[in-house]
């Protein structure tokens, strides 16, 4: 057992210092504390301070069942050579390596659009011209053709709509969601078909799907409700805290209709663009969701030591989905459009991702 007392500090003992270290809320400071001396570094590791800090920043991490390191050859903690380390100690060092690396991403000022694909909309008026895919396109007018999604019409303003998307990475930090409602310039009065308010959900695909029952997804985060303006601009909805989305599914809920279409007297909601600003944690991190419990395994791939940087959607290697998931996505899209599986789709555009998960599958 290490005796910290003598070399810890000339005025701090382990208990009082623990008090101070637990107050540090910036991962960079905790890292610097662990660079002060061997004793302090061991102290940070053995008290699980990196993990605790990450948990405070992202309560969603409480669902981590365990942590796995991949492709670790040659990467060992400084003090790990030699066999004197107990299992518990090895686990603590592993936690420290993984969570202190995780914390890097939290500090990144870089944010980019994390939406990779549209999955389905609760309803669509004219398919495919007004499908949810149009919301991935930033412009609302491309060479004279309008690009927007439209819900079906309703006489009851309280019928909500949802737009469900797949994110570029199975594990992302989402900070803000931006939505531009659609203004129909081709109609009299140029009405703007916004919703009264919006809400966001994040989660993962249910582990086992027997049929296309009501809820395909498990939602692990629901945001507060944000009022939406009836204005034709990209409106920013900043989440109260950055949220860790595990499972890569984002749903936008559009609550309450405000605009009636003169032609048929029905209320519609139309959206021209949706973006989810945040940070992708793949390929450095991936997750395996464990069955119905919603617990997950956090995997750190040491081969992928990239800084969080803007990557284009073309780097589809980062979208960690397996064949089953893609099939379900395609069925959902077909189901939502009221047509067969992948009929009528330009299949070249939406190919199955060829990145294959490790042994553990959903």
């Amino acid at each position, binding site marked *: 057992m290490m005796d910290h007392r003598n*070399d*810890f*500090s*000339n*005025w*701090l003992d382990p208990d*009082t*210092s623990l*008090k*101070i*270290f637990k*107050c*540090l*809320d*910036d*991962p*960079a*400071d905790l*890292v*610097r*504390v662990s*660079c*002060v*001396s*061997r*004793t*302090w570094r061991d102290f940070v590791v053995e008290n699980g301070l990196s993990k605790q800090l990450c948990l405070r920043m992202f309560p969603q991490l409480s669902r981590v069942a365990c942590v796995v390191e991949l492709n670790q050859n040659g990467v060992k903690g*400084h003090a790990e050579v030699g066999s004197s380390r107990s299992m518990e100690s090895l686990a603590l060092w592993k936690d420290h390596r993984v969570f202190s690396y995780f914390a*890097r991403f939290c*500090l990144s000022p870089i944010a980019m659009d994390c939406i990779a694909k549209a999955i389905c909309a609760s309803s669509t008026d004219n398919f495919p011209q007004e499908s949810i895919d149009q919301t991935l396109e930033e412009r609302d007018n491309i060479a004279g053709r309008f690009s927007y999604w439209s819900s079906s019409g309703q006489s009851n303003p309280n019928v909500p709509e949802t737009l469900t998307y797949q994110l570029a990475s199975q594990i992302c930090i989402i900070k803000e969601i931006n939505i531009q409602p659609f203004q129909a310039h081709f109609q009299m009065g140029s009405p703007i078909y916004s919703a009264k308010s919006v809400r966001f959900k994040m989660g993962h695909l249910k582990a086992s799907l027997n049929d296309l029952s009501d809820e395909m997804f498990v939602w692990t985060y629901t945001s507060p409700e944000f009022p939406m303006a009836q204005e034709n601009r990209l409106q920013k909805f900043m989440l109260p805290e950055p949220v860790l989305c595990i499972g890569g599914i984002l749903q936008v809920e559009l609550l309450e209709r405000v605009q009636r279409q003169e032609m048929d007297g029905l209320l519609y909601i139309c959206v021209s663009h949706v973006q989810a600003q945040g940070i992708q944690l793949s390929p450095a991190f991936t997750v395996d969701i464990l069955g119905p419990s919603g617990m997950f395994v956090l995997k750190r791939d040491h081969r992928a030591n990239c*800084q969080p940087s803007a990557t284009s959607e073309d780097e589809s290697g980062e979208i960690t989905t397996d064949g089953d998931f893609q099939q379900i996505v395609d069925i959902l899209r077909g189901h939502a459009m009221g047509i067969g599986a992948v009929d009528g789709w330009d299949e070249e555009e939406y190919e199955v991702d060829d990145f294959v998960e490790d042994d553990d599958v959903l």
Partner: protein
Amino acid sequence: MAQEASSSTSSKTISLKTGDGEIFEIEASAAKQMKTVQRLIDDLGDDITIPLHNVFSKELPKIIEYYKKDITGEITKDFEAEFVKDLNDDEVKVLFLAANYLDANKLFEFLSQNIADRLESKSVEYVRKYFGVENDFTPEEESKLREERAWSFRGIKEDE
């Protein structure tokens, strides 16, 4: 078993004597917030001057000031900010140690957070000097650590 100090008069004051021989008065209800002091009162009685060997005349008035505010329920974020505003890092250190010795929980918690805040973006060398810790990494280990952690070494404040 020591009897609880009588709280018959709310204006009862306790005399505290610092390690450098000065005497300060504090209300009994404020003294109660400092568990070490309360223990001494329980053992020695509340009429006697309580000796505090490890606390000195520089810091005790500040501590008394804090608890005076506390018993009237007036401690606000603004008060706390003002309280530490003109203290340098060493003065906070001394107060923190005194609060620890006196087992004055509320002040101790507040000062822990304040020290953590002061460490924000300070360099590793500064932290070592502040806490009086020796660097026992080898130069190779140290440069490897710096390399790995390069991202966290940006944005360091100039050492005061």
